[in-house]
């Protein structure tokens, strides 16, 4: 449909519809609660009746946190890896503090990457997420091995592959949630 030119518009910025306008205020509660709640709910996926013979379910909480962090840098503070990780530890079955430590380290690593590789595209973000997911899962295995007898690292291969392949889906969910979050 052709829009009739009635006035000369300044080129609108892409995110214009997400800004507060007259009589259309953004909800502060939604803006804060949606990212936090989505990561916590994603961590709680393990409490659904899903039974696998080997660790197969991707760490959805981690994927969600990485998705938000890489899609909207600056939204989650650097220290947010600790509370999100400790929340995940309640449900994951790992020794308490394992995800708290690993996710904090992941957030710090992302901060360092952000200062080195400033202009990135989507595939580079995916690569970074893939490396971090692999590191966190292997680190989780190592930590589980500190406290208890742990199985072989090759056991984690299917879970790592599945998590990396599911990352784009999680980023899309984050994007949908983001547009809902910022909608007026």
């Amino acid at each position, binding site marked *: 449909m052709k829009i009739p030119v009635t006035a000369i518009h300044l080129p609108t910025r892409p995110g214009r519809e997400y800004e507060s306008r007259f009589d259309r205020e953004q909800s502060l509660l939604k803006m804060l609660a949606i990212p936090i709640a989505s990561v916590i709910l994603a961590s*709680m996926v*393990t*409490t*659904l*009746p*899903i*039974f*696998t*013979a*080997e*660790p*197969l*379910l*991707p*760490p*959805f909480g981690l994927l969600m946190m990485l998705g938000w962090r890489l899609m909207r*840098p*600056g939204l989650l*503070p*650097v*220290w947010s*890896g*600790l509370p999100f*990780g*400790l929340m995940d*530890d*309640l*449900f*994951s*079955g*790992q*020794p*308490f*503090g*394992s995800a*708290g*430590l690993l996710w*904090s*380290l992941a*957030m*710090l690593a992302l*901060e360092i990457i*952000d200062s080195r590789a*400033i*202009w*990135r595209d989507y595939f580079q973000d995916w690569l970074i997420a893939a490396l971090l997911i692999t590191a966190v899962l292997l680190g*989780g*295995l190592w*930590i*589980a091995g*500190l*406290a*208890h*007898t*742990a*199985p*072989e690292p090759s*056991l*984690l291969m299917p*879970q790592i592959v599945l998590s990396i392949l599911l990352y784009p889906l999680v980023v899309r969910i984050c994007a949908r949630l983001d547009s809902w979050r910022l909608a007026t």
Partner: protein
Amino acid sequence: MAPPPHRRPGFSRKAQYSLFVTYVAATAGTIVAALLLSISVVDPTGFAALRTFGAEITAPIARIFSALRVSTQAITHDASAYMDAASKNVTLEKEARANRSKLIEARALRAENARLRGLLKLTDEGEQQIAVGRLISSTASSTRRVATLSVGRNYGVERAQPVRGPAGLIGRVIEVGPTTARILLVTDAENLVPVMRVSDGLPAFSAGLGNGTVLIKPLNLGESPFRVGDIIVTSGNGGLYRPNIPFARVIRKTSDGAWPSLLLTPATRLMQSSCNNIRAKPERLNKLPPLTARPKRLKSENSGNRYPPTDTAGTRI
């Protein structure tokens, strides 16, 4: 994408300090997490209360989904039961006829067994079913193999109780909450179960591999005496599990180093069973070792078992 504005504090002292504070907080948080982790490594049951809290608050949702899963399975099962109903009926009737005589024999053997036990003044151990529950979730994303059971302290579940499914041993209770309990599955690498081969009572122990199978290691050195297809039951050594709970079937023979060892079928099948007993009644042993194998087993078994060999009973009568 462009660096976010918070990374460029400009000349504002306040912005610079607040950016610095977030980095300090992140580093401090990492150290705090490392401390918490070291506490939980030293004392694995330390944060049990927190985990129990997590399991309790999510249990209602998990129960709903579990009920949905069970009812869906029931619907599909009922629907598929109508396929070939007539031919199935014929085969089942044939089987029932064949089983009837075996059942009578088994009853007679049980009566005889009870009589022999009476002669020996042996009493059955107080093994009874404490509660029946369902597995409502498992740690499907962690290398620990821990599942949550839908009953807890409210039904008398205590720590270290063995948990059985309809087909065999599943694990034992490690943490108990008010309405949920956490179970260390037999497939966890931490879980060692004393077992034996049902045909001759060859003692062994099983260690989980974390991938849904367990590794059975015989207690003696040398070549592995197991064969594919051997049925393994718990031996009851150590007293944690009662003897003769169906455990596994040998699916593959491996050998790592000096230890000949075996891979066994897993408890995956067991885990997927919807209904689990804690300390089931002996009658629940429907997949039990064949009755003819029992005296043989008892002849070869040695110390540590809670049942003294009953084959001596024959000489005393």
